[in-house]
């Protein structure tokens, strides 16, 4: 299990290559990369986190995924600090024997990271900064697990 919380940029392709390298025990690697999207006028995104709790919360979510699915490995990386549109903000990867487990576990990780890992996003435009509000649909998404 590889949990990283960092401000530094990352290269998703290189990380994924490393994650998958040398594995003979898995038939599926699934990954998701989140990108800072500009819906119009976004100057940058400010990501705040809770040092200490963030790593603990992500580790707890990843351990839950490992309990529920037969996973060979899990990678979760989430950035904090100031990010510009187009930059990767986070990444999840799962490795499993079969694709269903890899896809489902990655989906589960994403749903839980969204509303159970202590990160907060502020969108900064020319007009100022606005904290992104949590959506009820994000909370509802947890019910299916």
């Amino acid at each position, binding site marked *: 299990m590889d949990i990283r919380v960092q401000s530094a940029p990352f290269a998703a392709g290189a990380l994924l290559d490393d994650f998958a390298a040398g594995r003979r025990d898995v038939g599926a690697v699934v990954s998701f990369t989140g990108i800072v999207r500009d819906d119009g006028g976004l100057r940058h995104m400010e990501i705040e986190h809770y040092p200490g709790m963030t790593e603990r919360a992500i580790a707890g979510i990843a351990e839950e995924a490992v309990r529920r699915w037969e996973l060979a490995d899990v990678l979760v990386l989430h950035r904090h600090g100031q990010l510009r549109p187009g930059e990767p903000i986070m990444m999840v990867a799962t490795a499993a024997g079969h694709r269903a487990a890899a896809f489902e576990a990655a989906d589960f990780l994403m749903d839980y990271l969204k509303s159970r890992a202590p990160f*907060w996003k502020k969108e900064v435009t020319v007009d100022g900064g606005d904290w992104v509000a949590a959506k009820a649909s994000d909370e509802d998404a947890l019910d299916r697990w």
Partner: protein
Amino acid sequence: MTLDILYFAWLRERIGLPKERVETDASSVADLVDQLRAREERYAAAFADLSALRVAVDQELMDFDASLSGAREVAFFPPMTGG
């Protein structure tokens, strides 16, 4: 007891500090919130609607009726928006 209280995101901005150390006899998170609300208007405003807030006690998500027995750190923040 002495507690470290942390605030994040708009709550931090509204209260005007990221962290403070308080001396309190609050037995639950809800008691602590009542004491904070009574301090100053900015706290009352920040804690006006608890349904818009989440709380962690010693870095574990809790309900507002959670006990503070043995607690060292309490963090208040809006619902998370990671991913």
